[in-house]
């Protein structure tokens, strides 16, 4: 792309079409008289705009639109429109006003009269139309028709086709999102460095705190300030770069250029946060979500790309993984030791070595000769197995999958039209073309019980290496000039390759149980929309404190970008953690949504009992804490499915007016309930935590001591301390009887932890179902709301009819109330009163109501007397 040659795009006034649903017009390009673009702006429901720009008329090649990211065709909403000579004015949902300037083409969007976001205000829009290859290539187009990376050639037969747009987020002070990068939560200015890059890659030993491309790409940007929050979703699957400006850079100082600009302009207007999206190909297609609060933006984004369907409960419990458990006996021994050391565990994982010579959907005939027996050993304790299935296929004429793929033309082709061959775990491999609906269907059917011999419905799937990873390819991936179904080049679709694979896997697991059981899939590569099919982990991290620390901003960035079900390899994938790091990692990982330990094949064994007694004890404690909180996690995921609210959140989500929170990424919230301030450094006895909110009380989850400070506070955190705080005003349902696996806790009673706020009020909710099937979608679930007010705890079962549970309420703990009550009464379903005994602990001001012994799905009221 040529930056010197300013392109002026203008709307063609005569071409404007105004309807009550959309605005359409042609755009002319001052450099190419004969090429015009067609833009269309749609008003969507829930304060969202969509703008698309494509070439008008025919093109030499189809431009790819990754609609796979969208959960469905977005629902439009009526706009009122008016125009004069130089501008068009649109109004959406009364509070949103869009001003479109004809020449040069730009947009300004106001929310409640506040200028919130501008589009093409810096005139960086670009749209390179397909054109015949010129006889001689101009200097400014060198690299547009052919490019070399190390020994790899990108033949670029279709020439330049880039698209770009700039956004000014006037009302924001900080920018977030754009995962996956190993960087801070708040995005940094890219002045003087490379832009944030989206190009899904299998990066070996990735570096921290930069914008280098990683395994996934979610081109979702969030702007946030005291006034409001806004989101931009750039729907493009090609290699994409995003320049960020107007926010702090890596050095925490404004760049020299910015300082000069400020000096010259004499205003702070250039300090407006801005983003410049550039993609190698595709069309211009973006959504603007206008909040106004962070949770509104995530809801709006979720309505476009979907939410994570409620995961089966086991997948929220603890996962034990290693590359590799050597054989079925090894699996059995490790599982047995979890019981010997009384540590709960739900899932054992098998990495690539379980296969017969890296042929997926097969088992090593000696080491894993009895897969069914192995799985049955696990399921007899309520446990599951996850096996890895990668998208590369071993080129072996004795391998059914390879033969099927050759015979039915299921592979990606190289630029010459032959089947592409790359190198991966099995050696010479080819890659299924998931762009082809035939491949999607074929691959899905591989997961059926008949086809994947041995397994049961208790085996779940891990799709790894799906960037795709090609050991001998450019940047360890597939050449961009490879050809996919529909005549698209790999460059067009690269970032959704992994999404396409997990879509197919999800479909396969659905069909395996006739749509009855919820699938569980873990994927490394991801794109916008991946949350509808799979959980994501942060890839091949390291056993290093810095990698423990980065796991927070990495998962938080994903969470606000739609992908809540995120975790990092506990302990670190490469290298050996010492016991302190391992303990702290378990303590932190237990509060991230996906909780799995994993290790590289060259590392030493690190199962929790292999160190010393204290280490075993503290890891057991961390995992058990996770299990006691499973009802909370499950309820939060249910809430996420319904509303898109991220399960874990940055602090500013809950306290959007508190500017001091904008950069905090060493703490986070679990739902709106728990504040987690984990220890992320070595040798820590004491750390500083920020307590948000002006009129908040935070209760230490271990001691129940209240903290009323707003701001920084020193916290004692020896190795056995995990600084986690329950927010005053919330009620957390827990299960205190931690068993070998989560399934075994299904009928167990609940303990409700009521933490009152300054007004002595608290609220909470609980969601219950069968924990594994889709029956909840037929109404078979329980939803209860709790409220503590006026010394009464009221349980209202709002949806109870169609699901039965044996669970009951064994204990109620009310935290932070004075010692004035001597007993309590309970009234169930409006019946008679019965008396309950209470116990008050003067040390921590906790009142315990002893054994209400009422079924969890009853309506009841406990009154303190």
């Amino acid at each position, binding site marked *: 792309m040529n930056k010197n040659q300013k392109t002026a795009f203008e709307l063609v006034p005569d071409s404007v079409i105004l309807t009550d649903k959309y605005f359409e017009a042609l755009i002319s390009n001052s450099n190419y008289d004969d090429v015009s673009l067609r833009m269309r702006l749609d008003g969507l429901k829930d304060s969202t705009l969509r703008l698309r720009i494509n070439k008008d008329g025919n093109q030499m090649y189809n431009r790819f639109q990754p609609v796979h990211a969208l959960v469905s065709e977005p629902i439009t909403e009526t706009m009122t429109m008016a125009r004069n000579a130089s501008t068009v004015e649109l109004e959406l949902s009364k509070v949103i006003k869009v001003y479109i300037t004809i020449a040069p083409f730009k947009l300004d969007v106001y929310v409640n009269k506040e200028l919130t976001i501008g589009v093409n205000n810096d005139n960086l829009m670009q749209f390179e139309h397909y054109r015949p290859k010129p006889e001689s290539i101009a200097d400014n187009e060198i690299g547009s028709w052919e490019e070399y990376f190390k020994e790899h050639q990108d033949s670029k037969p279709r020439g330049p086709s880039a698209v770009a747009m700039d956004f000014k987020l006037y009302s924001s002070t900080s920018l977030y999102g754009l995962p996956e990068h190993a960087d801070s939560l708040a995005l940094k200015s890219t002045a003087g460095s490379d832009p944030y890059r989206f190009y899904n890659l299998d990066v070996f030993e990735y570096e921290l705190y930069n914008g280098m491309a990683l395994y996934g790409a979610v081109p979702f940007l969030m702007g946030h300030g005291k006034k409001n929050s806004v989101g931009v979703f750039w729907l493009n699957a090609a290699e994409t770069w995003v320049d960020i400006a107007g926010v702090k850079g890596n050095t925490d100082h404004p760049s020299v250029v910015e300082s000069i600009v400020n000096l010259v302009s004499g205003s702070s207007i250039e300090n407006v946060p801005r983003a410049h999206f550039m993609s190698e190909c595709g069309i211009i297609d973006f959504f603007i979500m206008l909040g106004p609060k962070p949770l509104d933006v995530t809801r709006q984004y979720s309505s476009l790309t979907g939410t994570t369907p409620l995961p089966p409960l086991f997948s929220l419990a603890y996962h034990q993984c290693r590359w590799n458990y050597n054989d079925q006996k090894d699996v059995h021994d490790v599982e047995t*030791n979890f019981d010997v050391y009384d540590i709960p565990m739900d899932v054992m994982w098998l990495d690539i070595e379980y296969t017969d010579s890296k042929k997926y959907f097969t088992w090593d005939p000696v080491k894993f000769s009895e897969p069914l027996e192995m799985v049955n050993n696990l399921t007899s304790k309520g446990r599951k197995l996850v096996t890895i299935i990668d998208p590369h296929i071993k080129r072996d004429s004795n391998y059914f999958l390879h033969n099927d793929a050759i015979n039915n033309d299921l592979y990606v082709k190289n630029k010459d039209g032959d089947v592409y061959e790359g190198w991966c775990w099995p050696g010479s491999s080819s890659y299924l073309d998931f762009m082809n609906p035939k491949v999607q269907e074929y691959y899905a059917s591989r997961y059926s019980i008949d086809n994947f011999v041995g397994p049961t419905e208790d085996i779940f799937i891990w799709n790894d290496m799906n960037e795709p990873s090609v050991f001998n390819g450019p940047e360890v991936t597939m050449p961009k000039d490879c050809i996919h179904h529909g005549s698209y080049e790999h460059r067009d679709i690269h970032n959704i390759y992994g999404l396409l694979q997990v879509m197919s896997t999800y479909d396969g697991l659905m069909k395996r149980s006739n749509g009855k059981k919820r699938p569980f899939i873990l994927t490394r590569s991801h794109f916008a929309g991946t949350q509808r099919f799979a959980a994501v982990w942060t890839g091949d991290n390291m056993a290093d404190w810095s990698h423990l620390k980065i796991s927070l901003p990495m998962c938080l960035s994903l969470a606000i970008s739609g992908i809540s079900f995120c975790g990092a390899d506990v302990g670190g994938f490469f290298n050996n953690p010492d016991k302190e790091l391992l303990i702290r990692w378990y303590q932190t990982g237990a509060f991230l949504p996906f909780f799995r330990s994993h290790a590289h094949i060259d590392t*030493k064994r690190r199962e929790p009992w292999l160190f010393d007694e204290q280490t075993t004890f503290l890891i057991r404690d961390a995992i058990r804490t996770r299990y006691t909180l499973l009802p909370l996690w499950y309820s939060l995921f249910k809430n996420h499915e319904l509303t898109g609210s991220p399960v874990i959140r940055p602090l500013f989500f809950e306290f959007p007016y508190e500017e001091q929170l904008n950069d905090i990424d060493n703490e986070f919230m679990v739902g709106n309930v728990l504040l987690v301030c984990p220890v992320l450094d070595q040798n820590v006895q004491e750390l500083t935590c920020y307590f948000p909110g002006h009129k908040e009380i935070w209760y230490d989850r271990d001691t129940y001591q209240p903290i009323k400070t707003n701001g920084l506070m020193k916290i004692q955190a020896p190795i056995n301390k995990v600084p986690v705080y329950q927010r005053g005003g919330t009620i957390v349902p827990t299960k205190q009887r931690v068993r070998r696996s989560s399934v075994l806790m299904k009928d167990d009673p609940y303990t409700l932890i009521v933490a009152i706020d300054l007004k002595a009020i608290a609220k909470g909710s609980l969601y219950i179902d069968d924990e594994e099937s889709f029956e909840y979608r037929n109404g078979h679930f329980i939803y209860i709301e709790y409220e503590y007010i006026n010394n009464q705890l009221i349980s209202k079962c709002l949806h109870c009819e169609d699901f039965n549970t044996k669970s009951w309420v064994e204990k109620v703990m009310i935290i932070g109330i004075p010692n004035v009550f001597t007993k309590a009464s309970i009234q169930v379903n409006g019946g008679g009163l019965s008396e309950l005994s209470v116990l008050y602990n003067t040390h921590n001001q906790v009142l315990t109501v002893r054994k209400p012994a009422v079924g969890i799905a009853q309506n009841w009221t406990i009154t303190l007397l």
Partner: protein
Amino acid sequence: MTEMENFYLILTIFCGIFTVINCTSIVKPRGIAFERASLYVPDKDFSCFDGSSVIPFSFVNDDYCDCPDASDEPGTSACPNGTFHCTNAGHTSLVIPSSRVNDGICDCCDGSDEWANNFRKDTCDNTCEELGRAAREEAERVQKIFVAGYEIRAQLIAKGKELRLEKQNRITELFEVQREAELAKNNTLYAKETAEEIEKSVLEKYKVMNDEKKRQENESEKLKDQNDAFEMFNQIDTNKNNKIEEEEVDAYSAFDQNNDGKVSQDEKDYFMENKKEISLEDFMLNGWSRLKKLIFAENVDVKETEHPADNVDNDKQLEEGDLDENEDESESVDDEVKYTESDELDESQYDEETKLIVEEAKQARNAFEEADRKFRDLQREVTHLQESLNKDFGPEDEFAALDGECYELSDREYVYKLCLFDQITQRSKNGGSEVRLGTWNSWIGEPKYRTMLYDRGQHCWNGPQRSTHVRLTCGLEPALLSATEPNRCEYAMDFVVPAVCVQDNEMLSAPVTESEHDEL
């Protein structure tokens, strides 16, 4: 769920509350061993064992945790830190964590841990009789092996003691012989040195003659080279002006190294060093050597291409690596080098007397070498015996008889070979060299003499040195049972051997499961 099942649910809860109340006078509290039943007295309030609080007896086993030490809920899953005792009549009693009570898994063979679920048919059958019988049979079988093994062990101990004595005696014996050998060595050394002194003095004149001859040879060599140079100069200097000019070079075909029929500028520049002409003096000092290089350049190339192949071999050796270097061997190599040096003189020119003296010196040397070798052999044997005596063959020398014995195990890919107190190797069935998985180091872990450590094995590619833990259990015939690699380059083997057939120790090394349960 049906109405009926709901009813069961209520029944379940009620049972939890009321069983104790209704049945205290008849049965002990659920989950308590008979011996401890007296701690629970139905007509009195119950004090938590830790004294933290006193509760009505009706709170015992009522499925609610009142005591921080879990003492009020021995029969339910209410307390997170509690335990449940199953009697398992007909088999061994068992203590399990409270969290395993009523979780749907039958942990006790009498099914008592699933009391709430036993309302449903067939949840947990009582399998204690069956399991007890099988366990007793197994215990009997193991006992038999132990008894038989213990006898073999006694023999091993006797053999070990015998071996120790033998070695000690042998050492004493060797000390005597060694002293004599040392004397003989010293004597022959003296004779050798004397003879060599004489030899050296008579050979001195031959050495001087020899050196002179060499000097002369060198000189004539140099002269010949200069003559060659002068001749060559004259050949090139066709106009005989005592200078070589460019035209003369062009005309001289020896300069055309690439054989293209003409002398290229590069070739010319190299020889002429970019000068227009070369004087005779310059040619003799520098030009001649450059010209020779040009002419012999081809040979140099040949040598260079040989090198990469050498490197490959070296790398391979490095990778296989760490071959034991025998100290003695390297010494003897040095010696050989010395002898060849002194043999430079041409013996044929010696006079008769000299020949005699040289012969005498040679014999004295041989005599010394012989005596020295004898001494060193003895020394080696003593060292070996002492090392062997210092090896830890167990508190009663029960492993001594197995020293150096080797046992093999063959799996799908490899043949493993364990040579006790020596080393462990692995040989791929697809060929390739043997890989050393470790060399004997020591006994490790508790209980003692049950796990052997073999370490300092060959380096893994990009990894640590290989090492192996060998776990020993009682068996009548020594045999290698299994070989695994739980961590990269860290191997684990199971080896049965009668030397460990001792019941007390065996109890100590029992699987962790049971000792863990005891704690709970």
